[in-house]
């Protein structure tokens, strides 16, 4: 379960899961939707695979990823997205105070 929480705590990985929720995508198609390097994306994919949240299907040189979320994991993903876990742009009490200070 620890690996699942780790996988869901990153906004990029949550976005990958969200995209895969619409249907299977190849590694290239997924990488095209992020402004991140291929090795970084590959690292995210391996964390998701380790948590058993996605499955990789290899055909020739193409790797296609499929979602493999149970309902419980889907609910956890929903919570993580709602509370924007690990998202540095998410509002926190500290940032709200800083923002108020700048405004004042």
């Amino acid at each position, binding site marked *: 379960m620890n690996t699942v929480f780790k996988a869901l705590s990153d906004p990029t990985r949550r976005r990958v899961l969200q995209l895969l*929720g619409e*249907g299977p995508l190849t590694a290239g198609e997924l990488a095209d939707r992020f402004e991140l390097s291929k090795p970084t994306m590959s690292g995210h994919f391996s964390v998701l695979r380790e948590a058993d949240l996605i499955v990789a299907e290899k055909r020739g040189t193409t790797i296609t990823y499929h979602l*493999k*979320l*149970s*309902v*419980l994991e*889907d609910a956890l993903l929903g919570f993580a997205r709602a509370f924007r876990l690990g998202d540095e742009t998410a509002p926190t009490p500290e940032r709200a105070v800083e923002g108020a200070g700048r405004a004042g």
Partner: protein
Amino acid sequence: MRADRIALRLAAVAVASVGAVALWGFVVDPDPAFRWVLMASWLPALWAFLEAAQERGSDPEVGRRIMTMHRFTIAWIGLALAVQVGVKLAVHEHMLSAELAPLGRRIGGLMLGTGLIVFGNHLPTLRSPWSTRTQPFDWQRVHRFAGWALVLGGVGICLLWLALPVAAAARATGQLLALVMILAVGRKAVSVVARLVAPPPARP
């Protein structure tokens, strides 16, 4: 022992239990006989259909995992049914106190609800070769929808058997189960019709 072996044995025990209870019911109260025949035959028929129709696909591990889940579900549903009807017959035959009848039915109802929760939770992770072949683009969304419907239905059934009188819980369980099945099958039907009306573009 491997999980698939345990599931196989549990499913066999559950089917045998349901058959034994149905036979007992026929001996105790034979009229009408068809209800006991129906009770004894529907679960093994469903199991035989799943075993025969399940294609192993390209990955035997996937097929094995899917069948393990199906066998556990058959075992759980069969045992819930055997407990419910068995307790009812035992009370009828004065082998159990009549006060225990509601308890037996509540246990059976709670087993049915938890079985639905467990199966529904895993349903979206099962990449059945049927679904991937007939609906390569939409099976995931259909399974996710059906999984959520089963889990929420299972939670609802558990709450009904914990909170309501037995007669009301039994009636409401039937209605809730029917609603869940209509939603799950309806979502699948919508997906099939949508695919016929507007086929998805071919993947490269």
